[in-house]
């Protein structure tokens, strides 16, 4: 009886194996010679779609560039898009689905909450993700996960760069205040600002920085007048803010008639790039803004020039924002890693990404092996209102700071130490 069963099982097994073999071989052949599928999980609907659109454009332009130059090890790259809705639950479902469809290499995360949810998911599902603008410092600190990489700037390099530049160029400004969104990221940016200012000002002037308590503002409010009144009461020469997007436009619009920006010498805006200026035009307050990528600061870099020209051709928009360059850089990082590893397997790509140096629209970036955080230039631009400029504003100054000089030490698994900045 046992022998009969074994013989039957053997025959069945051989038959099933015989039928399956051609498909197994076919899948394997496709995996080795077909296009390399890269998943893009980014907001394609909802309020954050504005940013997701930049990610989409940047990724597609990078893929065009890579494929026009022979692909990666002779294989073309294809993108598979899914909508994250900037929501960790939707993003997790989309990322898992893409891994199931063979796209183990992913990018496009712009939200910190989504980026933090990706670590354990990618680890358990066998994927890897390169974020495209997610700003939380936890990504390369206490929530470090080897399956998550950030090829853009860390919040420390962005904000410390901004502070160091202003402190160096205007050391006479010692009295500072801040208008900070009342959420975790806002408070982190303020910690970085305050710690850096308290360190740099005495180094440059021999005097202590005078820093007022930050003014905390709620997210998504239609009325900021009370907070503006608080700012008017403070004796400050400069204001730092990480209020973002539509909130920043509303805040600045309501602050203008109070004369808040006439009262201070400098406004430092951590991240709005052109979001405020394109909305407010000639009413834009003069301010320095941090940028993921400012195209004029990278003129002459063929990757930057190509990204800018193709972006303008595709969209008609003259002011691409940095998320496009972050998605663009993620594709170039994958290209470099796959070429180096000669493999698209997750483990091989992770090993190759660690310590990788690759060229990008902002110049060469180096991914630290210790915490998966890229070292890249910190870019800043000074935007001023202009009645003669066709768009009502113009960039009158910009700088690109050496990333090595503004990034914090790698401390994966540990909280950010602001004392060490």
């Amino acid at each position, binding site marked *: 009886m046992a022998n009969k069963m074994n013989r039957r099982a053997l025959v069945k097994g051989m038959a099933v194996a015989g039928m399956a073999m051609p498909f197994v071989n076919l899948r394997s052949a496709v995996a080795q010679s077909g296009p390399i599928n890269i998943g893009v999980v980014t907001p394609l609907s909802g*309020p954050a*779609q*504005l940013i997701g*659109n930049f990610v989409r454009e940047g990724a597609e332009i990078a893929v065009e560039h890579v494929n026009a130059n022979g692909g990666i090890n002779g294989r073309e790259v294809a993108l598979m898009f899914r909508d994250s809705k900037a929501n960790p639950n939707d993003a997790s479902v989309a990322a898992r689905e893409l891994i199931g469809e063979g796209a183990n290499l992913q990018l496009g995360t712009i939200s910190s909450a989504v980026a933090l949810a990706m670590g354990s998911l990618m680890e358990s599902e066998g994927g890897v993700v390169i974020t495209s603008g997610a700003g939380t410092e936890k990504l390369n600190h206490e929530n470090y996960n080897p399956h998550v990489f950030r090829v853009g700037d860390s919040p420390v390099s962005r904000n410390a760069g901004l502070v160091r530049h202003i402190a160096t160029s205007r050391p006479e400004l010692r009295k500072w205040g801040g208008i900070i969104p*009342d959420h975790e990221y806002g408070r982190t940016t303020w910690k970085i600002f305050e710690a850096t200012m308290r360190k740099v000002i005495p180094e440059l002037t021999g005097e202590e920085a005078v820093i007022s*308590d930050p*003014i*905390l*503002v*709620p*997210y*998504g*409010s*239609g*009325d900021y*007048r*009370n*907070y503006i*009144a*608080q700012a008017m*009461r403070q004796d400050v020469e400069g204001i730092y803010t990480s209020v973002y*997007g*539509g*909130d*920043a*436009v*509303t805040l600045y*619009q*309501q602050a203008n*008639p*109070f*004369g808040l920006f006439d009262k201070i010498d400098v406004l430092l805006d951590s991240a709005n790039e052109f*979001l*405020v200026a*394109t*909305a*407010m*035009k000639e*009413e834009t307050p003069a301010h320095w803004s941090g940028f993921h990528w400012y195209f004029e600061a990278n003129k002459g870099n063929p990757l930057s020039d190509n990204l800018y020209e193709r972006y303008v051709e595709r969209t008609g928009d003259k002011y691409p924002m940095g998320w496009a360059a972050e998605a663009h850089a993620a594709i170039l990082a994958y290209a470099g890693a796959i070429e180096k590893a000669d493999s698209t397997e997750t483990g091989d790509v992770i090993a190759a990404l660690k310590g990788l140096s690759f060229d990008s629209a902002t110049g060469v970036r180096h991914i630290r092996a210790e915490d998966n955080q890229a070292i890249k230039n910190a870019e800043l631009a000074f935007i001023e209102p202009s009645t003669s400029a066709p768009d009502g504003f113009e960039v009158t100054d910009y700088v690109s700071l050496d990333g090595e000089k503004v990034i914090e030490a790698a401390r994966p698994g540990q909280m950010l130490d602001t004392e060490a900045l």
Partner: protein
Amino acid sequence: MLYDIGLTVFNGLAWAMATFLVAAGLTLIFGILHILNFAHGGFFMIGAYVSYSLMTGMGGSLPLWLYLVGAMLAGLVVGLLGWAVDALVFRRLRDVEDAYSLIATYALLLVCGGAVQLIWGLNYLGVTPPPALNSVVFVGNVFMPTFTIFIILCGVLAYIGLELFISRTQLGQLIRVVAADPWMAQLLGLNVKRIYLITVIFSFAMAGVAGALLMPNQSLSPELGGIFLLQAFGVVIVGGMGSIRGAFLGALLLGLIESFGTYFFPQYPGIFFLLALAIILLVKPEGIMGKEQTA
């Protein structure tokens, strides 16, 4: 100290009147049709965008009278949309459970967001107030932006106008009759459907005008619909559902609480409105005006 209190009161009034402008139409629809219109914020947003298009189409910074004409036109457009909404949606909601109304009007809010995205795109937009309203007035040491004074005046005038309309005009009195007992009103020969339609058009037009009036102080984006909606619902609930006077008083109360709360406890931004809402509901769940005053 006096300066700080003066500015805090001024800012509280600005919050209150901006919110009342949005809430007035919301409470009117609830008072007459008993529909909690989640889509109200969406039509407020459409009013703002229509006005933006009119203003930028006419060259941007406009004289005050043109800005006001633009606001009236935005109200007209949104009022006409109200007509369509009444025919397509609200009429079907009159004899169904509240849950269906909530789902239908929430879906309508999503439709508004999608329409704005399709027509005007996702970028943040902004316009400046008319030059006549883009300055500052000093009252003692307290400086008051003229645009904010204008919004406070608009809120007060809107309240007085609505009170007079409801209590002193024949149409207003008919609306009150229908709000009190639509069945009896029908028996008495009133065209209840027409009064419902007029109420919806009027409420939507008020949302459109509110959007247009407040636009120069806001960033425009498809998120705008939700920003004032929560505040507007708050003042409608605190005032007593369906009461214009209640919404006005609720807006004043919540605006001043929010403003003084932020002044005295700046480390807790934005929570005083919610805190006050919760406490008032616990103490007086029927709202300031209770159920006796409808519309």
